């Protein structure tokens, strides 16, 4: 039993109970709404950043009324016959532009010195959906940097309050000691009275953080991500919950950092333990599998040679010709 949903005119059949966002991800391409707070591997995440708002122009086959407001696609389940508009609705595009502006209001825009630059979701989001200039003319809120544990630094000024790290601590680690303090735009992620976060899986908060609020202290200011080369590797990790499958980020011969493997939506495939992440930084610790494929749209692949196979076209002579030109252009050094 599957349900039919149409997103921007593309129909797909999905399992009942799938969210609109996941249905869109199954279709793929430009119609996938951006998500800053939703994380498919974390239960109950999503619904907070509002960047994935979409318009439901037809509720379902049974009840074809449109939904009165834009809905968060990550937390709205599809109904049979639902019709969703994402990039085809000017209303959604406008609302999303507003959300991006709001998210950037109190964000410091210190990308030049931020370790997350290059793999920052907010950067990508602002590039794709935001305005060139902000209309905000006031001082941004700032916080002191704090070290939560000896390996992780929290720079709250950059935080967009996606709550992902809170969900990680709740669901992946044994014990959560950080959370949200205060209210409104003064709310902050913190451990109460600077208590240190200390457990085997705490490093994963770095991977799930969409911005540079939580950074790896063993990697801070070592290099820009786009100068490093991602390589897939694994090791025989003895932690029961960690399978040791990671991405090593090389600069020359040196492993600068270790992260979990992230998919095209920036979500990790498997969470890794702190030993793998912070303590194993020699090539000899790892079994190298090969280069990690990074989307050619990402700045990380900017200096890497990356071959994208062209679609095979056999019938249309015009397209075959165009394809050849494209092939030459893409493979020219």
């Amino acid at each position: 039993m599957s349900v039919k949903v149409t997103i921007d005119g593309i129909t797909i059949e999905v399992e009942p109970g799938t969210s609109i966002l996941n249905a869109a991800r199954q279709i793929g391409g430009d119609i996938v709404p951006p998500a800053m707070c939703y994380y498919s591997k974390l239960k109950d995440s999503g619904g907070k950043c509002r960047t994935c708002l979409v318009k439901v122009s037809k509720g379902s086959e049974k009840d074809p009324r449109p939904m009165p407001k834009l809905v968060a696609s990550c937390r709205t389940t599809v109904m049979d016959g639902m019709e969703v508009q994402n990039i085809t609705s000017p209303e959604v595009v406008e609302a999303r532009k507003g959300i991006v502006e709001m998210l950037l209001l109190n964000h410091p825009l210190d990308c030049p010195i931020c370790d997350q630059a290059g793999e920052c979701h907010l950067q990508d989001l602002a590039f794709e959906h935001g305005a060139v200039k902000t209309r905000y003319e006031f001082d941004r809120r700032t916080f002191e940097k704090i070290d939560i544990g000896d390996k992780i630094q929290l720079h709250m000024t950059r935080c967009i309050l996606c709550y992902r790290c809170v969900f990680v601590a709740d669901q992946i680690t044994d014990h959560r000691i950080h959370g949200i303090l205060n209210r409104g735009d003064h709310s902050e992620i913190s451990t109460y009275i600077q208590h240190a976060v200390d457990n085997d899986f705490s490093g994963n908060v770095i991977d799930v953080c969409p911005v540079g609020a939580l950074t790896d202290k063993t990697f801070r200011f070592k290099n820009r991500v786009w100068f490093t080369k991602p390589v897939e590797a694994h090791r025989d990790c003895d932690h029961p919950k960690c399978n040791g499958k990671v991405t090593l980020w090389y600069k020359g011969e040196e492993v600068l950092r270790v992260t979990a493997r992230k998919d095209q939506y920036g979500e990790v495939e498997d969470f890794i333990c702190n030993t793998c992440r912070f303590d194993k930084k020699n090539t000899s610790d790892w079994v190298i599998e090969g280069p990690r494929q990074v989307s050619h749209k990402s700045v990380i692949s900017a200096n890497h040679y990356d071959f994208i196979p062209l679609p095979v076209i056999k019938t249309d002579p015009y397209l075959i010709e165009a394809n050849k030109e494209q092939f030459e252009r893409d493979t020219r050094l």
Partner: protein
Amino acid sequence: MARKLLLEHINVPGINTFDVYRSKGGYAAVEKALKTMSPDDVVEEVKKSGLRGRGGAGFPTGMKWSFLAKPEGVARYLVCNADESEPGTFKDRYLMTYIPHLLIEGMIAASFALGAKISYIYVRGEMMPQIRILEKAIAEAKNAGFLGKNILGTGYDLELYVQPGGGAYICGEETALLESLEGKRGNPRIKPPFPAIAGLYGCPTVVNNVESIAAVVPIINEGGDEYAKVGIGRSTGTKLISAGGNVKKPGVYEIDLGLPVEEFLYSDEYCGGIANGKRLKAVVAGGSSVPILPANLFLKTIKNEPRLMSYESLSDGGFVSGTMMGSGGFIAFDEDQCIVRNTWNFSRFYHHESCGQCSPCREGTGWMEKVLHRLEHGHGKMSDMDLLVDVSKKIEGNTICPLGDAAAWPVASAIRHFRDEFEWHVSHGAEAVTRNFGLAHYADPLPQPETVA
């Protein structure tokens, strides 16, 4: 003088005690409901009465009750929302302070109708005296056998608890209230699921305002049809209005819905007119989150009909020229009040009370507050008004809970109706800090559209 349904015995000395309340016919509704009616009958009576939620949204209470899921073996809860924090509204506090047994009686009857064995009254943390009053009233009712096991020998058990909140505006939003009641951070939940399906501790829950629950008492006593005769159209019954601002006699008034606003504002029975012989400039009709209206549009609708105190009439004209009933926090502004300052004040409140969960409200409320602060203190720009309207549009409807809308509406409406004053604050920046814009044309009769033959 219209008949009072809720505040009939409010002036009886000692009405806050069980004995006096009982001698005035109190707890008759509980007796009638538990002994002679089935739970469905009670729901049916409330449906017939057409009672609409008194907390602000005006959703029919009977309908809300009938949506409650009733799976076997799962507890159901009734939660009374006494986290009254809307600026300008103080009717629930009044009710709980002076006639607490009315609320207790309503809670028992409503819990019986919904089949709840445990019910909560969630009171805002600042209202400590009211919490003590309610606890005392509950103890008295329990002594008299109206609460606890086997109430009045009917076999119905009910425990009623008072839970103080932490004093956050956001905890008046029903799902945030439930989170807070569960002992978590008061962040609104993402709906669906609605509380009627999965509310408190994941069980079906109904959350009602204090006044809605109190109104169940006269509905049961007199019957839903009788109750529906009071009022006008779909706005049935009576409503408590907390009149404040520059009126001669501020206070809580019980009115029949459908009373002309002019009568409410100027008759001696109610507000008694504007204090100190001033003239009316603007009115916020239902608590700080509803759109503000200038005097001329408030007294008469855009069709030049007199406006009435009812859900429909107040919202006549939509957001262009109407407002909302809201929670009944009636604030009148006289000619000396500065609308820019007031809007800034409201905006400051919403900035302070935003929970910070979803981005448009968290960031947008602070932005609006800062821009309005600048305008009020004479450093504004002409482009600020358009900016504010645009920001309010970006917030409205894009948030998890209605706080975003509540923050956006007063700003958007103030600029819509009082743009002259905002512009004057920019063009006469230095003067704006020392004196007010005054009444201007805001009380002038509405221009009549020319009839084209």
